[in-house]
């Protein structure tokens, strides 16, 4: 029956399945159907098991929904409520359409992953065939160690990147004439988001006014009507809700100018229009920032420029991804986008140095500095220049012996005449040849070398597979020790039976096959030793456990 904590998303009455009336329930993780009058589900499928859903064509009399599972089975549901059948069916279909993809991805991903791994690595595939298909080991144990490695990689690649803000988003709105003296502004959610991120004051106003005071449409209409949006912000009516925003922006701009740019390499204040002399440049009067001296035209120009600058700084601030709440916060960000620390006032010279370093040096052109090394300080370096002590004891010769030997040789060689026709007798020569022929004294080692030439290639291949499979099983077995938990205890017992089964089903037949081929070499001796070792260990552990219990 349904678990108490399951959330029921949709209930559809009068749904027939296999000619029985009943009710269809769609839960958070599965879909279930129970017959009328009974309180248990006869049909229950997890969304993860469902491969796809099919609906009967619209023209048909019977309104049906079919669920096809991964295993190939299918369940037919007939919506038999006269009036609402189509609506019910469509509601169920829509819900399933939303839910299935969520679960589908998870299940498929794993299977896909497994398939991919098996296809990529033929050794793994062979191991899988040997162990899982022949039921020596269960599939979960096989995949236990291998899948975990890959799941980590997937999670890392899921980091979403933030979308930046286009600086021209306001210009992209592009009002179109309506025909009769009106303007149509097309606002998409992207543009709205950009506006909110760039001008948090507007977002604030939006939050205050919508939906209490006005609808969204009204808000935006007012926004576009207000002079805040338009170029010349000279006349700001008191009724305008955006006049506050304009004031905030002015404040923000002023504080930004006050803070200035912290980059020590840039001196913005020296960028002034200087004229050489009268007539060479702009006005002879020094430009001032006070508004009163300027003409109307100058005022509007400077206003536009101010707004452009402000807009750019806001876009940059928003694009850096930090939250901008107060004008102070904005100003902080603008300075941080320059790459300076917040304590730049205190650390002005080092920052400058860092900046200069940055500009002068390119990382790629640096020599590989490598890690810090410790100087090698050899006290007895002559140790390296001596070889090992010879194993055989040196023969001691007295100086008399030496003198005698040398004299003897001198005499002998003084009368030396090469006699090349009597270098050796034929019998000695034949002895030597006999020793050098196969089977002779000097050739004994040759006979032992040919094992890899005597065993046929397919036997060698099978032996390799056996070793891989046995290695895998033994690895599972030995990793259980020391046996601390109940799970490991069970696993150890299971592995021992697996090992025995493997030995019976694979190892012994292979051995018999090898023997039948008259190969006297003991190819499986080592494998048998390894298994015996494992059995001994298991036996020792078991006896110790018995003793502890009694």
């Amino acid at each position, binding site marked *: 029956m349904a678990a108490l904590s399951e959330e029921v998303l949709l209930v559809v009455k009068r749904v027939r399945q296999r000619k029985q009336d009943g009710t269809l329930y769609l839960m958070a993780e599965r879909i279930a159907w129970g017959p009328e009058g009974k309180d248990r589900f006869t049909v229950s499928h997890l969304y993860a098991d469902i491969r796809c859903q099919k609906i009967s064509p619209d023209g048909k009399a019977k309104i049906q929904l079919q669920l096809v599972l991964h295993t190939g089975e299918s369940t037919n549901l007939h919506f038999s409520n006269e009036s609402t059948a189509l609506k019910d069916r469509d509601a169920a279909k829509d819900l399933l359409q939303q839910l299935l993809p969520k679960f589908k991805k998870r299940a498929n991903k794993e299977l896909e992953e497994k398939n991919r791994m098996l296809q990529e690595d033929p050794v793994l595939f062979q191991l899988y065939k040997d162990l899982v298909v022949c039921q020596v080991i269960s599939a979960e144990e096989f995949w236990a160690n291998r899948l975990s490695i890959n799941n980590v990689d997937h999670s890392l690649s899921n980091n979403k990147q933030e979308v930046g803000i286009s600086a021209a988003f306001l210009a992209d709105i592009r009002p179109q004439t309506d025909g009769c003296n009106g303007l149509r502004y097309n606002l998409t959610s992207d543009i709205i988001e950009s506006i909110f991120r760039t001008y948090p004051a507007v977002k604030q106003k939006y939050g205050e006014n919508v939906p209490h005071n006005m609808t969204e449409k009204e808000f935006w209409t007012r926004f576009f009507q207000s002079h805040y949006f338009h170029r010349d912000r000279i006349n700001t009516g008191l009724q305008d809700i955006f006049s506050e925003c304009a004031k905030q922006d002015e404040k923000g701009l002023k504080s930004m100018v006050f803070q200035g740019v912290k980059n020590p390499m840039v001196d913005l204040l020296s960028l002034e229009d200087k004229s050489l002399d009268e007539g060479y440049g702009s006005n002879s009067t020094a430009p001032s920032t006070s508004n009163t001296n300027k003409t109307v035209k100058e005022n509007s120009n400077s206003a536009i420029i101010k707004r452009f600058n402000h807009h750019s700084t806001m876009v940059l601030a928003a694009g850096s991804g930090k939250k901008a709440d107060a004008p102070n916060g904005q100003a902080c960000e603008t300075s941080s986008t320059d790459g300076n620390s917040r304590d730049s006032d205190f650390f002005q010279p080092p920052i400058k140095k860092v900046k200069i370093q940055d500009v002068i040096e390119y990382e790629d052109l640096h020599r590989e500095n490598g890690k810090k090394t410790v100087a090698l300080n050899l006290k007895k370096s002559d140790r390296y220049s001596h070889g090992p*002590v010879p194993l055989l004891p040196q023969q001691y010769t007295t100086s008399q012996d030496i003198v005698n030997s040398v004299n003897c040789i001198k005499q002998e060689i003084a009368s030396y005449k090469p006699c090349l026709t009597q270098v050796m007798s034929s019998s000695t020569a034949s002895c030597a040849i006999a020793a050098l022929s196969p089977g002779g004294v000097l050739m004994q080692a040759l006979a032992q070398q040919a094992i890899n030439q005597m065993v046929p290639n397919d036997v060698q291949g099978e032996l390799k597979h056996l070793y891989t499979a046995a290695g895998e099983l033994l690895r599972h077995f030995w990793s259980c020790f020391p046996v601390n938990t109940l799970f490991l205890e069970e696993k150890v017992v299971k592995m021992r039976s697996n090992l025995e089964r493997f030995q019976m089903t694979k190892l012994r037949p292979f051995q018999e096959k090898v023997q039948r081929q008259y190969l006297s070499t003991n190819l499986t001796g080592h494998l048998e030793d390894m298994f015996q070792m494992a059995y001994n260990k298991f036996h020792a552990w078991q006896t110790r456990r018995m003793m502890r219990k009694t």
Partner: protein
Amino acid sequence: MASEDEVSLLVIVVDVNPIWWGQQANREPQFTLSKCLDAVMVMGNSHLVMTRTNKLAIIASHCQESHFLYPCKLWKSGDGHGDENASTSGDGKYELLSVANDFIAEEIKNLMSRSKSEVKGNQTDTLLAGSLAKALCCILSTKMLTGQEMKSRILVVKAAEDCALQYMNFMNVIFAAQKQSILIDACVLDSDSGLLQQACDITGGLYLKIPQKIALAQYLLWVFLPDSDQRSQLVLPPPVHVDYRAACFCHRNLIEIGYVCSVCLSIFCNFSPICTTCETAFKIPLPQVVKSKKKKLKPST
């Protein structure tokens, strides 16, 4: 069949340690230095006769010097000089061979007469490393002179024992030969030589300790006359197992398992927390001692 242009140079290094050979004369009178030299000459002649372009060099390795028995320094290209010696032995022998043999005999006589009887105690070892180095130099100079493709190998006929003091020089020679693809073969008369085993293994040559010294010529011709290409077609004695164990720095014993300092790579047979060569201190974490719960025994009264 080797191509006409390929030059094959064989350098035979003969160990003529007078002390060993003098004692050998007492031990086995039927095989003395003279017999050995005869066998070597046969080998040299056979090599020269195999192909017209084959070249030969013989170095005698004494305990006081290494001397070229053949060819002589005066022979720039190795073909003249027959006129002066005019060894008209009259037996119709190939002149090159007769001249070579005579020359070798004369040189060894000179060498032995030069050797001082007053041999100091520490000078009783054969200067084998030096002779091998000279052989390498000879090969290199011949390579430069001929300018053609040359295949060369060194055959060492060793009599006396290894000298432990020459170890480093020996190893350097071996690696130099390996780099130049020069084979080093070894024919050992008396006691096994670990150094030569290593040399043969590293350079790809053959090592053979012969059971019968009197049949030296036969062994030389059977095993060491064919060059490396032909050896792959023949069934020759299999390679021996070489002892590559390292020697510990403290006792100079050969060890199989030891401790290596990760800073200076010196090998020790026993663990010590401070490496004596580079004086680095090592901290080894001790294994965790698990305290087992012991049952409290009731004190017996």
